């Protein structure tokens, strides 16, 4: 019995710890076959985007993305003075598998780096040395520029005129939501959509 318990501790717990809370691939989170897809166009330097990310998307990630109900995609636009630099770091973070953590840090410290433009210092204040090294490694990757251009092109295609803009897709129907909406109201809409999902 004791051996079985030890085996369980030795084998299962590390495996559980290694599992990410939310499946992440670059700037995409959650299960591909989730009934709802939420695509968010944000600008790292836009204050409304910071509010939206921290107050609405953070709980959404926990309650809907981690539970397989929503597949969440982030797109970064570059409309402010230091947005491009921030987008480079964020796309590098995405390649390093650190987008979620890095976005939280940059949005929380947005006021600080928006004035100085020192995105790296802001990130370094919230990430470990190892994490920063992983991001720096990716900064010169070819994919960074391609990802920024791809997001720009998509923003033009979807006629994103301001940030944050969210597209909620369910059963072939798209609901655009422009601006910040509270989590309490967003979740009511998602629950309504999920009512009819298998």
């Amino acid at each position, binding site marked *: 019995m004791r051996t079985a318990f030890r085996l369980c501790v030795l084998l299962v717990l590390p495996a559980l710890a290694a599992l990410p809370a939310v499946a992440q691939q670059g700037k995409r989170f959650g299960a591909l076959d989730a009934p709802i897809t939420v695509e968010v166009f944000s600008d790292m330097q836009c204050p*409304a985007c910071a509010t939206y990310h921290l107050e609405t998307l953070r709980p959404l990630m926990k309650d809907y993305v981690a539970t397989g109900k929503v597949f969440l995609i982030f797109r970064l636009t570059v409309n402010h003075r230091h947005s491009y630099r921030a987008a480079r770091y964020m796309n590098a973070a995405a390649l390093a598998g650190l987008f979620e953590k890095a976005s939280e840090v940059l949005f929380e410290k947005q006021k600080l780096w928006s004035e100085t433009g020192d995105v790296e210092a802001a990130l370094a204040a919230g990430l470990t040395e190892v994490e920063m090294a992983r991001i720096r490694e990716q900064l010169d990757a070819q994919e960074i520029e391609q990802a920024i251009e791809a997001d720009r092109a998509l923003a033009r295609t979807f006629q994103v*005129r*301001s*940030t944050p803009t969210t597209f909620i897709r369910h059963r072939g129907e798209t*609901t*655009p*939501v*422009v*601006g*910040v*909406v*509270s989590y*309490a*109201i*967003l979740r*009511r*809409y998602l*629950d*309504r959509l999920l009512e009819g999902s298998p």
Partner: protein
Amino acid sequence: MRVRAQLVARCVLGLVFVYAAWTKLAQPWERFALSVDSYRLLPEWGVIVVARALPWLELLLGLLLVAGWLLHYVAPLVTALLAGFWVAMLWAYLRGLGIDCGCFGIGQAVGPATLLRDALLVVLAGFVTLGAFRARRASSASAA
């Protein structure tokens, strides 16, 4: 001539209200709640009350306008409602929220065009209100 203009004005306004109500009632109220919430003016319960009740109120007011019933009550209420919408839209525009107005479903950004359109509707509603009170005064004078 003035009576005919009043009739046209209240019918146009009434149909606009019915159309606005229909665009909202044709979708789940939670979808309209997203538009209301994006103005960042109301608490959660306020957003829910507005999202659930406003489309029905618009429908009722629209039908009453077209029918011409209780006009001296309905017309000032419609004017006040439209003026309220205009102030909310102006507030959102000046704050640079870039949101959808939510007036006729989804996809109309708050901007100079929507502000001008709503301002014209306020003027139209004011004209109908004025006519309603004139008609009421005239009928009470003839009754006396």
